């Protein structure tokens, strides 16, 4: 009887361990993770990317609704193809990267969660912080859980990958980035896209 109980307890603990949420680290040593941004402008739209991504997300493939996490973008990593434009963008007149070195999104709640195979879609409500101003946003996201695929990306490392994709828009005026000014030169709306992969080594 005692042996049976021990075996049952062992099976239960293994089950709990397997079902436990995994922590994924989004600091990408390969430098592929990126956040893109686009603003309409008269001559051509301003397109750029940020590569300085970090943060952690806890994800349970058996229960994606419990997903939580925070993604951080290094403001200084924002790039546009024109060095003068980049200088203006990071200066105290626009993003003030020296004073506000991070852009963050911290999730609070996952809603409308739908899972199909290894892909989960959801609407994530969280706090988006830019230039020191925090606003609550709801963002549609797509999560792709790639079990045992970390080794394909980083040889000799076992583990899983979690790919997060999201597209949403914000208004620069809402974040005190020259509100109501220069809208004839640079649009108020900023389109953002996030394509990031996090690793959970075993």
């Amino acid at each position: 009887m005692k042996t049976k109980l021990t075996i049952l307890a062992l099976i239960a603990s293994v089950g709990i361990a397997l079902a436990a949420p995994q922590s994924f680290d989004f600091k990408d040593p390969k430098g592929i993770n990126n956040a893109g941004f686009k603003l309409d402008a008269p001559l051509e739209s301003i397109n750029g990317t940020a590569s300085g991504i970090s943060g952690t997300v806890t994800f349970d493939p058996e229960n994606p609704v419990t997903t939580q996490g925070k993604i951080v973008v290094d403001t200084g990593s924002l790039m546009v193809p024109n060095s003068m434009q980049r200088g203006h963008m990071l200066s105290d007149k626009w993003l003030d990267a020296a004073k506000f070195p991070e852009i963050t999104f911290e999730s609070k709640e996952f809603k409308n969660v739908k899972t199909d195979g290894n892909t989960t879609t959801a609407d994530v409500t969280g706090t988006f912080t830019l230039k020191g101003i925090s606003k609550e946003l709801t963002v549609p996201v797509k999560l792709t859980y790639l079990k045992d695929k970390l080794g394909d990306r980083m040889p000799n490392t076992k583990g899983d990958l979690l790919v997060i994709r999201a597209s949403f828009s914000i208004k620069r005026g809402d974040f005190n980035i020259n509100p109501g000014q220069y809208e004839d030169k640079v649009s108020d709306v900023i389109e953002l896209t996030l394509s990031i992969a996090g690793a959970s080594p075993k």
Partner: protein
Amino acid sequence: MKKILHVIALILVLGSVIFWAAAGANRGWTKTSVPKKTLDEVTGIEGVTYEKHFVPGVDFLAAAFLCAGILAGISFLLRTKSNDSQNKI
């Protein structure tokens, strides 16, 4: 002197147009680096890296035309040597 300024202005206009056209006739802003996309086959994520490369845009053309215009303007301010003064000498 006047003729020299005219020639320099002309060279500046023609040179900038040829350089702009040869570099791909970019109708946007001048680029000092160009984005290069790389696909991560495991995750399907398209990463972007920037390579230093100068691509002149319409602002480059405008600056070259402005310089040429200034040179031409200066040339009009210079006095032309008259035939009388040349005859006196």
